């Protein structure tokens, strides 16, 4: 056999033994390194358990803490012993005790024989990788790291900061360019001998001893110096999470692994009996490894852990509201004033946009859902106290639950106003306001100006406060505000803009404005309010007497054209 294996073991010795036997039974000589931190009886038992295998050797033990030089030293010692003892070995595979061959070792050997002189080692320059943890990419080669990242994190961080502050930098030895990559490689004898017997090796070793995580850079860097043909990928599938810790494979990954056609996987949960029982299994002698599906599954996990599902507030995702860019899952629309001008506005809008149009969700008496029922999607209740107890979350729940729908709701100064700031700051909100429309509702109610003077003043105050919020510099919603008088002069313009905004290209053309409230006598009503000492400035100007001559429902003439 021309493949030799170096196995680094520090835990789960029964599984490590199983893995070593798999390699050895296929005829590969195996050199094992046991972590110095493992207690003597455990180690001896392990050595004894493997004593029946002739081509299994052990090397002196180094302390192998995560990210320290010991791991490199162990690999060096293992490779040296392997190459010296077995002259027939042409490729050396570095594996761990938690590695499991997925395909018969013979298939791996055939693959290597088909690629003579090729080194399989993931190796990329620091500028071109995105997966370094903690932002230390080039710095790991330029600073000193005498403290343990795991056990002395505070010292570690401070010492890094200090060096960065002082601007001290180490010189990288001549002749090498720092490269990074997976610590599990498969190198040719030629390359490995060149690395191990490099005349500059003492200098390199001294340098890498103080590099951070040298096991991911020592061989990766030196292979670049010596190798003739590098295939920059690892033959071992191993995925890392956002903290740089390896993902673990379980029984339910069986299909995923079986279909990948990969040769070796790391790392397998020691109690994944199914995996240890089923692998290695042949997946066709000439099948090439393909990790696309595996990559996708674990990349999704990374996205979920770092970015999560937008607009979802739940027990393990609670973004600080002001910090997240948009609090809700999808865009939705808030319509203020329209329903006072256009009777049956809800149905009209539903017909023109196909959207789910709620009534006044934040009405004082209850939440008016689009279905008119007391409970809505997700189990949201219409009870005003329950809603006002946490109106923000009432809204995020509503939008999250109906994230496959376009949702709109009516709003107005008579509703509970606690939600205003959230609406204004939410990038998903589209807020269309016709100011002063409440005056029309008061007028239609038949009350005299004297009767509703106080109420009008209150509504105007509330609406003015909302408008000010919408005009604040931190408002990030899509906002459109027109006064009632501007609206009635050209209602189709505003309605078309609204419908377009909600339904996009699916919107229908608003040729004819829907029937609107009769404005006969409204101007007089406003004048009466003024006479009572309450000028309704939000409505815009309505002059007493007949309505102006311009056709009320036509389109305005365009003075500025962009399509000539």
């Amino acid at each position, binding site marked *: 056999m021309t493949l030799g294996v170096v196995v680094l073991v520090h835990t789960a010795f029964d599984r490590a033994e199983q893995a070593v036997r798999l390699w050895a039974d296929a005829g590969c000589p195996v050199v094992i390194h046991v972590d110095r931190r493992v207690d003597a009886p455990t180690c001896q038992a392990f050595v004894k358990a493997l004593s029946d295998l002739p081509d299994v050797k052990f090397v002196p033990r180094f302390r192998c803490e995560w990210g320290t030089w010991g791991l490199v030293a162990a690999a060096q010692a293992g490779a040296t012993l392997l190459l010296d003892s077995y002259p027939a070995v042409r490729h050396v595979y570095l594996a761990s005790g938690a590695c499991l061959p997925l395909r018969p070792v013979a298939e791996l050997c055939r693959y290597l024989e088909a690629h003579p002189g090729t080194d399989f080692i993931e190796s990329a320059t620091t500028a071109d990788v995105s997966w370094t943890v903690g932002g230390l990419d080039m710095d790991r080669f330029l600073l000193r790291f005498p403290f343990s990242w795991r056990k002395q994190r505070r010292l570690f961080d401070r010492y890094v900061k200090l060096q960065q502050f002082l601007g001290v930098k180490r010189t990288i030895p001549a002749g090498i360019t720092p490269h990074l990559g997976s610590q599990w490689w498969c190198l040719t004898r030629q390359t490995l001998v060149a690395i191990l017997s490099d005349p500059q090796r003492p200098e390199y070793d001294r340098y890498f001893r103080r590099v951070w995580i040298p096991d991911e850079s020592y061989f990766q860097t030196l292979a670049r110096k010596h190798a003739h043909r590098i295939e920059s990928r690892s033959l071992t599938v191993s995925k890392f*999470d956002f903290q740089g810790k390896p993902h673990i494979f379980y029984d339910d990954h069986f299909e995923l692994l079986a279909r990948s056609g990969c040769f070796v996987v790391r790392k397998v949960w020691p109690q994944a009996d199914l995996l240890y029982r089923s692998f290695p299994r042949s997946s066709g002698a000439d099948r090439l490894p393909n990790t696309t599906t595996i990559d996708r599954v674990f990349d999704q996990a990374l996205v979920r*852990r770092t970015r999560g599902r937008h607009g979802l507030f739940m027990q393990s*995702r609670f973004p600080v509201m002001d910090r997240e860019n948009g609090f809700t899952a999808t865009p939705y629309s808030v319509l203020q004033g329209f329903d006072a001008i256009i009777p049956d506005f809800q149905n009209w809008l539903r017909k023109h946009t196909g959207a789910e149009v709620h009534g006044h969700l934040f009405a004082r008496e209850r939440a008016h859902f689009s279905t008119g029922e007391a409970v809505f999607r997700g189990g949201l209740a219409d009870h005003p106290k329950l809603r006002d107890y946490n109106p923000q979350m009432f809204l995020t729940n509503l939008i*999250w639950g109906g994230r496959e729908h376009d949702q709109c709701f009516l709003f107005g100064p008579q509703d509970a106003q606690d939600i205003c700031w959230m609406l204004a700051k939410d990038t998903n909100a589209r807020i269309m306001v016709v100011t002063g429309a409440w005056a029309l509702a008061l007028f239609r109610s038949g009350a005299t100006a004297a009767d509703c003077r106080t109420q009008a003043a209150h509504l105007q105050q509330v609406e003015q406060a909302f408008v000010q919020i919408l005009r604040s510099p931190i408002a990030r919603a899509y906002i459109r505000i027109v006064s009632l008088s501007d609206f009635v002069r050209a209602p189709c313009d505003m309605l078309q803009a609204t419908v377009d905004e909600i339904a996009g290209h699916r919107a229908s053309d608003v040729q004819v404005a829907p029937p609107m409230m009769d404005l006969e006598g409204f101007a007089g009503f406003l004048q009466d309010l003024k006479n009572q000492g309450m000028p309704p400035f939000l409505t815009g100007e309505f002059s007493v007497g007949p309505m102006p001559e311009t056709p009320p429902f036509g389109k305005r003439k365009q003075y500025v054209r962009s399509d000539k």
Partner: protein
Amino acid sequence: MNVFALYSLRLQRQLLRARALRKRHELTAVADRTAQIRPDDILLFCTFRNEAIRLPYFMDYYRKLGINHFVMVDNGSTDGGADLVTGQSDVSLWRTDARYGDARYGMDWLMWLLGRYGHRHWALTVDVDEFLIYPFCDTRPIRALADWLDASEVRSFGAMQLDMYPKGAISQSPYFMGQDPFAVANWFDPGNYIMTRNDRMRNLWIQGGPRARVFFADQPRLAPALNKIPFVKWHRKYAYVSSTHMILPRGLNLVYDQGQGEKTSGLLLHAKFINLFQDRARQEAARGQHYRAGEQYRRYSDEQGGDPDLWCKWSEQYINWRQLEVLGLMSKGNWA
């Protein structure tokens, strides 16, 4: 946070531990098999009172999940529930007739046992009507979860309580001993949970679900808390503050991401609303030994003549954990 506030948290934790130490005298060992506990065993801690009907399925469920040893406190049961478990080889049982309410709803007793036997173990603290669901729980035992949490250097695992209820009046769905309660009560509210952050303890205070919707809509502040942290790599210095809702030191309460990501979380399916509940609500309301002197139980027994129908058109029928994950009630987070 200033030094005084930090110190007050420390003081609170120590007082809770002292309480637990004092309350240990109320416990009498019935079957002490704790000598069997091996260093990396996963333990379950539980207090119960007259739960003979629920216990067989409860034990069965958690045994299948991979719990190695059950540490239980029998609070004066008279229905033979204790006899059901004493004989079982993986159970250690204590008995007390002291008042549940005086022992912080049983938490003092459990905290003493947690400190004594749960130190450096993964410990699951649940009620008899709570069933833990976590990502991949149908294919990976709880040992896999514990190992993964260890490898990720996470010490606590959050699982919100999810109230399960039957379709129709509760009395119409009788529950029999040994039966899967979620064969009877298999509906839940998918998306009406509200939460705020408790700045002092740093936990999330979650309310909502069918109980807030039906019983507490007019006084939402009183709606029961649903946030729970039941699975913890216990240390004898830790203290549960209010049931398993909060824990000190407060860093353990950060089972949620405050940025945009999702941490891994599970759910405690709550089999409270099954038939055996009606009598229970009346008994407990009279006994007044529960939180806020049984106020919750009084509401349950008043609502709809004591036989509420929690089901609504928007209720979801339970399928499996993946469904709950898609709905956004729990998350796989980084575990894949």
